[in-house]
């Protein structure tokens, strides 16, 4: 997982840049960067609950955006912290699709070292591009 938080991009909120040698690695890094804003000890999240995702979009950046939003949905709707266990991204006939298995556990206030709640993944400065080393995404989160 490779990501770093960028203080110079969003003073009121949180921005990060995530990298991956493959597109799947990039998606996983970006998910992890998002989760670690909300829980400071994400490595301690137990993998006791499984959820699966099956998403489709016409562009890769939009696929990343709706993928990250699923982390917020599960955090609010089911009070779960989930980590990417397995992910595959494919491209066919102008459409990008993603299948992922997520594993995690319920949010427990006294157990997890909570960070800060994320309201939304924004389109502000949102970017996904190929680099010499693979892929890189820039994401700004609304806090």
């Amino acid at each position, binding site marked *: 997982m490779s990501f770093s938080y960028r203080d110079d991009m969003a003073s009121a909120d949180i921005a990060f840049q995530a990298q991956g040698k493959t597109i799947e690695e990039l998606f996983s890094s970006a998910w992890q960067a998002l989760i670690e804003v909300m829980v400071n000890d994400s490595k301690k999240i137990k993998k006791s609950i499984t959820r699966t995702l099956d998403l489709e979009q016409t562009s890769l950046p939009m696929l990343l955006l709706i993928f990250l939003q699923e982390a917020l949905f599960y955090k609010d709707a089911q009070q779960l912290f989930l980590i990417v266990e397995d992910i595959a991204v494919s491209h066919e006939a102008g459409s990008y699709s993603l299948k992922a298995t997520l594993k995690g556990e319920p949010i427990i206030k006294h157990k997890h070292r*909570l960070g*800060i*709640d994320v309201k939304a993944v924004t389109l502000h400065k949102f970017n996904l591009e190929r680099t010499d080393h693979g892929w890189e995404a820039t994401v700004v989160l609304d806090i």
Partner: protein
Amino acid sequence: MKIQGIKKISNVLWEISPSFKGGMKVPVRIYASEKLINQMEKEVFEQITNVACLPGIVDYAFCLPDGHTGYGFPIGGAAAFDPQTGIISPGGIGFDINCGMRLLRTSLTYDEVKPKLIKLVDTLFARIPSGVGGAGALTVTQDEFCDVIEQGMEWCLKNGYAERKDLERTEERGCMSGAKAAKVSHKAIERGYKQVGSLGSGNHFLEIQVLRPENVHNRKAAEVFGLNIPNQIVVMVHCGSRGFGHQVAQDYLFQFLQAMQKDYHIKTNDKQLACVPFMSRDGQDYFSAMQCAVNMAFVNRQIIIHKVREVFSDIFKKRPSDLGMEQIYDVTHNTAKLEVHTVKGKKKELLLHRKGATRALGPGMEGVPFEYREIGQPVIIGGSMETGSYLLVGTAQGSKTFYTTAHGSGRVMGRHQAKKQFNGRELLQKLKAKGIYIRCASYSGLAEEAGAAYKNIDDVVKAAEQAGLSTRVARLIPIGNIKG
């Protein structure tokens, strides 16, 4: 002045003409002192001039003294649109629809509360959920939640969570009547129905504050608002529509991104300004869904205040009415609303977008609760947990911004930088030594909210006062705070 093209009109007013950027339909007006405008990031000027390019904008695009970078609109941004020819944009309202402030007064004094402060704050922290993904204090089914979002605070009144006076002292009486649950996605309902009565995190808070005699700026207005006891205790709440509102905004932002160019041939300078004509089916659907989120936030704050009344009642062993626990007012600072204003001498209905901006009606105006009408609408400005907050009142001169003023301090330091600079546990101890007792769900979150991360709130409210947008009534000093 660091940005070329900005003209100084007065000590607290700056203007950017439409020649600044291609496509600007109206000038921009920024209400700020020189110090505050110099603290604004360059992006604020880009964003507010992008707003000035939107179809149907009327008069000016406004930036208020607490302006800072947002998404689409800057935070502290406002703009009015002709409902017939103009647009509606989720980026002009914010992800946290009806994020807002509520202020409750008590008849208790600081000396009466001080011995019980720790117990009060601990009990509030235990009974009012806060922090990441927190489930709310109210348990409702998804069907009941649909009633909540359509009926707003009327639902609370019917179900024993509100008093009639709470509704009378809330903007829109706590319910926007165009809310239709059918216009909201199932995902938004799933995301929000368990969160009613929860604070969330970030800059959201519940605070016990004291009004010291030396901090009363307008005695007459303070008395009308029921603040007439030396060292009187009040409770302030800052929160919004939680995951429900965030999902409503997200759903329609995506929908508008697709429809904007394909169906309506509108181009914007920023994807976060995605918009559609207000009178289009898409525009009306969003307006209705947004009103559901507005209502959810009013109910969210009402349930929190209901819990506050219960906690004070339990600890002081008196009924809330015997503790004088009456709501002063509830204002929203993230909305779009249809309002009638005077434009070039004629009354006109306008769609007012206010993002991190507060409605501030002047004396005698319809919409101000009858008991406050003589002096104007209360405006609640939330500050940091270290520096305090303000109660202001709207003015007749506020017509220049369609009766809109600031909403808070505005950040000057990034969250990551604040975490590096401040330690949450140390900050907690430092504030305790200063007489401010805090409970928080996250120490790192607490560090991000350090007072030094924000602009000086005194500068913000003074600039708003000098500009004639609102005037100071009282400065409220924190003594207890719960944060997510």
